[in-house]
């Protein structure tokens, strides 16, 4: 399994693409060749592999020798309504070490931190951390209702005590 984000294990595609892949798998009885997805949906591997990586990181898909399989967690997730998806995603995100550390950083700053300071603190723990990684942390944080972000103020907040 390739590790996204230059070696830092964190999803780096939008959730709708992960869900789209899972729905394709679901339509194909839970299993499909990666090459078939690429061919049928006119997606280059460069475009598809980050989606697969992110789905694997979240535990929703398993990739093995070119075959993609929907996990039981993945099948459960796509059957949920939006509210339940959010709750499930919260658990998933807090199970990712990098995201837990990210939340700790914000909590340590009193629950609120400027984006630039957040990147500085993150880079102390993860030297490969980049502004793009911060974007994905903010995105998944918002999606799972664990973080709040104001793009005008460039401030990150923790939404609830973790």
């Amino acid at each position: 399994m390739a590790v996204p984000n230059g070696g830092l294990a964190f999803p780096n595609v939008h959730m709708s693409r992960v869900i789209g892949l899972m729905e394709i798998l679901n339509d194909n009885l839970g299993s499909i060749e990666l090459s078939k997805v690429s061919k049928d949906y006119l997606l280059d591997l460069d475009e598809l592999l980050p989606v697969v990586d992110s789905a694997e990181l979240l535990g929703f898909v398993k990739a093995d020798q070119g075959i993609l399989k929907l996990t039981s967690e993945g099948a459960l997730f796509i059957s949920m309504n939006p509210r339940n998806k959010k709750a499930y995603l919260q658990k998933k995100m807090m199970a990712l070490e990098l995201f837990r550390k990210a939340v700790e950083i914000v909590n340590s700053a009193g629950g609120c931190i400027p984006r630039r300071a957040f990147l500085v603190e993150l880079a102390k723990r993860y030297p490969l951390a980049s502004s793009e990684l911060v974007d994905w942390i903010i995105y998944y944080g918002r999606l799972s209702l664990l973080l709040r972000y104001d793009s005008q103020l460039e401030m990150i907040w923790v939404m609830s005590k973790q």
Partner: protein
Amino acid sequence: MSRVGGLLDVIDVSKSYAASGKHIDVLRDISFSIDKPEVVSIVGPSGCGKSTLLRIIVGFLPPTKGKVLHHGEEVKGVDLGMSLVFQNFALFPWLSVQDNVLIGLEHVQIPHEQKVEKAHHVIQEVGLEGFEEATPKELSGGMKQRVGLARALVRDPEILLMDEPFSSLDALTAETLRNDVLRVWADKSLAPNVVVMVTHNIEEAVYMSDRVLVLSSRPGRVIEDYQVRLTRPRDRRSPEFYKCVDEITSLFT
């Protein structure tokens, strides 16, 4: 001739324009009715007037001839019982997600607090909770289209019209959003009862719709009102699905 008195009646609608001294017929004698909750797709060659038809139905454009009735009342101008989702999202870039959605309630006379509550509810239903303060530049294409969908749903339209809603999205995101639209339509606690969708994707039309209206090339006329008699959820790998796609495709040739 369609039976009048249904939920939506399109009666002998024609549309033409004068341009550079020429007379251009875009649509000719379009008639159909919708009288129960269903998803109806409109397909046809490029330039056959599909999007024009949608805009006439929702009241953005007047027909040159004929009329559109919503529960027997002629549609003249924007009808608050209908909402339109655009192909290219049409969001205001300087407004947040919440404020873009609130635009959908601009002409609705209720207190502001109620508008905010309704906006929050539809933002949750389309999966954008957590992004209320985000501006469009922070959103992916799929998220922008969810905002467009939320804005259309916020005033509880009975009829949701969609103009090639997934064509600006990548294949995986489009897959997710199609199922989300079907979920919203099937949820009886949410409006709308009817979805009318323009698409150039026949497979998408068969996957999502109860009926597919096939238009001819310009001037667009209804050449077939195709009933999709497949149970949901639909299996895109089934021979019956392929048969429907083939039958509709053959109508173009």
